[in-house]
Every structure is written in structure tokens, then in C-alpha cells.
């Protein structure tokens, strides 16, 4: 983001793009109101996709449109106020256990598939594993920094994740409707198996309000694991580098000068922790203490409804077809096999556990 020196300068930089997001959000809501059965969040994403791929976003609008991640985060923070806290406490331990199991399984499964079946042996395997198991492109970028991945590896992994985000946005609501899944099962299923946070929230709320809340809280639980996974990868790759260096050097060589011990610091974990979870939990606590009136809660719900619409217009602009085309065939196969397996297994498990 450019850093304008004054408030007026910053407004001039960001307002045009934010204006386009607002215009898109109002348009999406108007279309969904006129056409019953059409979901406004999916219309917003489609609007963004059309804007990026048909019209081409003008340069003056780019900084403002890129703020969509801030609006998504703000919407999630506000959602904390309207959570059914007792339901979360009741099902929380099971959901947390599922999140840890599915994330761990997906990570190891993608690593094993990439290296042993598809012959992807470099850092790309780890980027795909992180993207598929935790939080999409954010996880790819976070882990890339930890393992010194190359630019083209990051681009391949990010394009693969975005491709699956686009596909799941269409496929998940269709499956949810066909199987007549309950709000809780559908929400947790989307939260535990889809990739990026934006599409998870969109698909959840496209099903129902309750499914949206379950999808978001499950995904947030998954996102909090990013720090641990990124730090774990950093330690693993640093140790591997040290081992390679010491094997190639004289037996008597002293390797302590590299400064890479592979230790994981708390600071590193905190740096990668998704901080909007703090705001989300804070508002959930304030709300459960009964400090908001019903009118306040209604307004907060309306506010995050609008913010999600804004964010999803912007999210749609991220799905550029020319970028998706650069996803290589092998990474797509790896992620497809892993995703299909995890998606089916987690759905079976959820139907058995949560009914």
C-alpha cells in the first residue's frame, strides 16, 4: 500500500477503489433482492471476477480495491459479537480436535503425495501442503518466507490455491444443497476442508447465517495454526541446510557461524498469528457478557453483512484467469487428489460426529 503523507493524500489514493467495492456491494445486493434464490455474496464475487477479467481494473482503483482483506478481517471481527457462544462452547472441543486432525493429515498427505507420487521434491511441495492444509495464499506466503522459496514456486502454489478457491465457491454450495446438510455440518465442513478464508466465509453464509458462523469459527481455528506450521517448516529447512552444509564441508569445519539453529521463537509464532482473531474473541467475550442491546447487535450484523459484500467484490478481482492458467499441471493434480480425499473423509466424519 502506498503511504501518502496526509489524510487527504491517502483518501485520494484509496477512495476510488473503495468506491468501486461499495458500488459493487450495493449492486450485488440489489441483484440478489430482485432475483430470489440468487445469493448476494456469490453475485459480489462474480462481479469482482468480471471486473478483473473483462473490464480490467484501472491503476487508480487498484490500491482501494486491495483493501478488501481489511474489510474481510473487519467483518470477521464484528462477527464475534453475534456468535452463539454456548453452542461454540458445547461443540468447540470436537471442532478443535477435528481441525487439528484434518490439518495435520492434509499437510502430511500433500507432502507425501508431492514427493513420493508426483515427484515434486523441492519447496513447492511444502508450499502446496501449507496452502491446502491451513489458509490458502496467506499460508503459502507465510511459509515461503520461512523456507526461502523461489518466486515462481510461490506463483505456482498461489495460482493452484486460487484455482481451487474458484472451483469450491461453486461446488460446495451445490453439494450442500444436494445432500441437504445441516448448517453446522456444512459450516464446519467448509471451514475444515476449503482453502482460503474469504471463500469459506462466502460459501458458509451462502448456505445460511448459522453455517456462515460455523464456517468462520472453524476456519479461524485452522488459521491460528499458521504460526506453528510456518515456524516448524523454518526449523526443518534450517536444519536440512545445516546438515547439507556440514556434509559438504570438512569434518572438522565449524558450522556455528551460520546463525541458523532451527529454533522456534515465540516472537516468530506471534508474528505469523492472524491478529484479527484477537478482535474476534474480544467482541465475542463482550457480547457474551450481555453488553450489547438487541438493536446494537442488529446493527453490527448489518455492518458485517455489508463489509463481507465489499470484501467479496475485491476477492473476485483476485481470481484473474490469466494467473490461474499459470498453475502447473502437477501441482494441480497433487492438490486435487489431496483435496478430494480430505473433503470426502471430513464430510463422512462430520456427518458421523455432528449428525
Amino acid at each position, binding site marked *: *500500500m502506498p*503511504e*501518502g*503523507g*496526509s*489524510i487527504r493524500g*491517502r483518501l485520494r489514493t484509496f477512495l476510488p477503489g473503495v468506491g468501486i467495492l461499495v458500488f459493487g456491494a450495493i449492486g450485488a445486493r440489489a441483484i440478489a433482492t430482485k432475483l430470489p434464490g440468487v445469493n448476494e455474496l456469490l453475485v459480489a464475487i462474480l462481479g469482482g471476477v468480471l471486473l478483473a477479467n473483462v473490464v480490467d481494473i484501472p491503476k487508480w482503483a487498484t490500491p482501494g480495491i486491495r483493501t478488501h*482483506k*481489511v*474489510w*474481510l*478481517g*473487519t467483518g*470477521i*471481527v*464484528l462477527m464475534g*459479537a453475534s456468535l452463539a457462544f454456548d453452542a461454540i462452547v458445547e461443540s468447540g472441543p470436537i471442532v478443535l480436535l477435528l481441525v487439528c486432525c484434518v490439518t495435520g493429515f492434509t499437510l502430511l498427505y500433500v507432502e507425501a503425495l508431492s514427493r513420493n507420487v508426483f515427484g515434486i521434491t523441492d519447496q513447492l511441495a511444502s508450499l502446496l501442503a501449507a496452502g491446502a492444509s491451513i489458509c490458502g495464499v496467506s499460508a503459502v506466503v507465510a511459509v515461503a518466507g520461512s523456507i526461502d522459496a523461489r518466486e515462481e514456486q510461490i506463483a505456482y502454489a498461489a495460482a493452484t490455491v486460487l484455482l481451487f478457491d474458484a472451483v469450491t465457491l461453486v461446488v460446495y454450495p451445490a453439494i450442500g444443497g444436494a445432500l441437504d446438510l445441516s448448517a453446522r455440518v456444512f459450516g464446519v465442513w467448509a471451514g475444515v476442508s476449503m482453502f482460503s478464508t474469504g471463500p469459506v466465509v462466502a460459501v458458509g453464509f451462502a448456505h445460511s447465517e448459522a453455517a456462515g458462523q460455523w464456517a468462520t469459527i472453524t476456519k479461524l481455528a485452522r488459521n491460528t495454526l499458521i504460526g506453528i506450521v510456518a515456524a516448524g517448516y523454518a526449523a526443518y529447512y534450517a536444519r536440512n541446510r545445516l546438515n547439507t552444509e556440514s556434509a559438504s564441508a570438512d569434518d572438522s569445519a565449524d558450522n556455528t557461524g551460520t546463525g541458523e539453529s532451527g529454533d522456534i521463537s515465540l516472537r516468530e509464532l506471534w508474528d505469523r498469528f*492472524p*491478529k*484479527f482473531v*484477537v*478482535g474476534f474473541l*474480544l*467482541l465475542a467475550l463482550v457480547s457474551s457478557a450481555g453488553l*450489547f442491546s438487541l*438493536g*446494537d447487535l*442488529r*446493527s*453490527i*450484523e*448489518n*455492518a458485517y*453483512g*455489508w463489509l463481507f459484500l465489499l470484501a467479496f467484490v475485491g476477492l473476485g478481482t483476485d481470481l484473474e484467469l490469466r494467473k490461474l492458467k499459470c498453475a502447473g499441471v502437477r501441482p494441480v493434480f497433487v492438490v486435487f487428489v489431496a483435496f478430494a480425499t480430505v473433503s470426502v473423509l471430513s464430510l463422512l466424519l462430520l456427518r458421523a460426529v455432528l449428525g
Partner: protein
Amino acid sequence: MSNDRHVVAARRRVTAKVVRRWAQLDTDWKSVAWGLAIVGFVVGFDVSIPG
């Protein structure tokens, strides 16, 4: 008059500092700040946001 100029200059310095700090803030913290600001606005001024 001179006092007014000092006040205006001080206000500009503070605004510039706030803008600079905001620009350096992590996206996640910006979301938290926006979220709390909206809640403060709704609760503090008893504002109703239409759906």
C-alpha cells in the same frame, strides 16, 4: 495569533504521525481497529446500520 499558529502546527504534526503509524500497521490490526471503531460508533452514538 502566534498561539493559534502553534496549535495548528502541533495538530498537523500529530495528524501526520497518526497517518504514518496507521500506514505502517499490519492489515490484521487495521481490521481490529476498524471493527472496534464501528462497534464504538454503533454503541456510543446509538446508530442504526440498515441491512
